[in-house]
């Protein structure tokens, strides 16, 4: 009986939905990620960026690495193709432009943290984003050195940009100190204790569709025709067919499979949180950095 009760209780606890988040007040979004495709992976951001666009936000994408290793075309060509695809994908999501910081792909571990952070502080002071979306430095088991580096640099840059004694040379350019009030962080939720999301962001079908399209724009790394070819061979061996593949090239079928994957993961996160589509994040509100004061400020601040 106890086992039966536990069997009922444990999944119920595990499935407790996250609170649904809102788009914070503001109009500028800065997405800071290590790679060309991180803005629209299976574990985050493409749908939320589209939602920010729908809410009237102007958004910018900063990719820290040159992505030279992503793809089969060799270092310099990969860099060029990935940048081009990144620009196309971000346009689909309604973003204004892409900054490439061009650090060497997958070699970011030994680069000077302060130098990377200084670049981000400059971008933050230039654009004064109300929201930064980035990688979660506290996500566990992330094997990618670029993810770890950018996450750590962002964690400091978002508040250090607000201190005038940090890079005072920026002030000579007419830039003012500025602290980023709102932060959304993502990481894989399927790695060990993994990422610890505290909010689910509901998405519409249209936002998921833009996420799907943005994702498959990265043809240099996703939607390989060989993937569809392998799946077709397996289906054939089991005497199965998928009607949607009929009349499509391997590349078109691969794009379709990737779009289904994006739809599936968005539905899965939605179902876990009581809505049709969603993405999940660690969200930091404007005064969360003052745990002893945030309630007081929220209760006592007046217009």
């Amino acid at each position, binding site marked *: 009986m106890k086992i039966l009760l536990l069997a009922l209780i444990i999944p119920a606890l595990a499935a407790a939905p996250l609170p649904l988040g809102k788009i914070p*007040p503001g109009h500028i979004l800065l997405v800071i990620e290590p790679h060309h495709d991180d803005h629209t992976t299976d574990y985050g951001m493409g749908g939320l960026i589209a939602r920010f666009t729908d809410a009237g936000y102007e958004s910018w994408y900063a990719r820290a690495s040159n992505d030279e290793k992503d793809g089969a075309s060799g270092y310099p060509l990969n860099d060029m193709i990935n940048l081009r695809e990144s620009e196309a994908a971000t346009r689909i999501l309604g973003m204004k432009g892409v900054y490439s910081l061009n650090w060497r792909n997958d070699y970011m571990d030994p680069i*000077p*943290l*302060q130098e990377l*952070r200084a670049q981000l502080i400059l971008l933050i002071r230039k654009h004064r984003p109300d929201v930064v979306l980035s990688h979660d430095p*506290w996500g566990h088991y992330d094997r990618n050195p670029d993810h770890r580096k950018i996450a*750590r640099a962002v*964690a*400091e840059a*978002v*508040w*250090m940009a*607000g*201190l*005038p*004694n*940090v890079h005072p040379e920026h002030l000579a350019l007419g830039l003012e100190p500025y*602290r980023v*009030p709102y932060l959304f962080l993502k990481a894989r939720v399927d790695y060990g204790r993994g990422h*610890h999301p*505290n909010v689910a962001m509901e998405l519409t079908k249209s936002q998921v569709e833009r996420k799907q399209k943005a994702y498959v724009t990265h043809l240099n790394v996703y939607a390989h025709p060989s993937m569809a070819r392998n799946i077709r061979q397996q289906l054939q061996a089991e005497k199965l067919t998928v009607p949607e593949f009929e009349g499509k090239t391997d590349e078109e079928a691969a794009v379709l499979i990737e779009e289904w994957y994006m739809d599936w993961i968005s539905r899965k996160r939605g179902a876990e949180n009581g809505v049709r589509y969603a993405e999940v994040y*660690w969200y*930091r509100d*404007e*005064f*969360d*950095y*003052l*745990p*002893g*004061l945030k*309630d*007081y*400020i929220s209760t*006592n*601040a*007046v*217009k």
Partner: protein
Amino acid sequence: MMIVLFLLFVSIASAKNVLVVTADASDFILAAGGSISAMVAGGDRAILVRVTNDDKDSWRLPPEETASRTKAEVEQAAKILGITQVHSLGYRADELGGVSPTEIRDRILFYIRLLKPDVLFIPNPYAEYDEVLDRFYTGLAAEEARQAAALPNFQLPFAKAGLQPHVTRELYYYAQPFDPRRREAESTATFTPQPKVVGIAPTFDKKLRAAQALKTINYSMAMRIRRRLEDTGRKLPLLETADDAAVNKLVEINVRKLAEIAARDSPYKQAEEFMYAGPEFQVPQKLR
């Protein structure tokens, strides 16, 4: 008379050396000030090692003046808590990511061997969602320093200068309550700190006065809150005149709330929360 002298001797003999390691000036006060003050009130001796110079955190003051004022203020704050010495290592604030972790470790190791603490307070490097990474770097270095200070093959020249290996038996990891999983018990392996909540009602006032002594940092915090609210068409009546009284009140609200958060689910009304590893955790379970 003999009894009084005997009790005094016992008290002095059992007094502990407490070494507090902090990254920035306010860290140790906000997260551990009440507990440190209570130890001092109980007869222990406390000493502070401050890793950064806090040169960034002010409102419209240059870095040099910020560092200078904050140094004086943290010394005043430490005095209020009963800390007898403050050793400032002088690293530039928010730049520890570019400093060799081994260098920071060995500087803390030096003080551990010099002062021979029984108790060590360090920032918890495993506390998540604290964006001030100075605390992370300092915590890692201090944790490693505690371990290395006990081993004779670390820093051989120190031994030649008379600084012998030293084992610190009690370790408190402190942090502000950013991490939602901070109360989760760790596994039960050999050396594994566990959650510990310490009541601080008797020393709360000293902790508050120590926090209020950091005038440069506090004024900066108040003005940054005010600026953010103004930029978004809001205001906090308390900060309309950001004078000493208003800033002190803001600090009081902050310190009281932090004590209340730490006391949740505990028998205390005001508390501080730690991950704690005492002498018992250094004996492997299988050997107990």
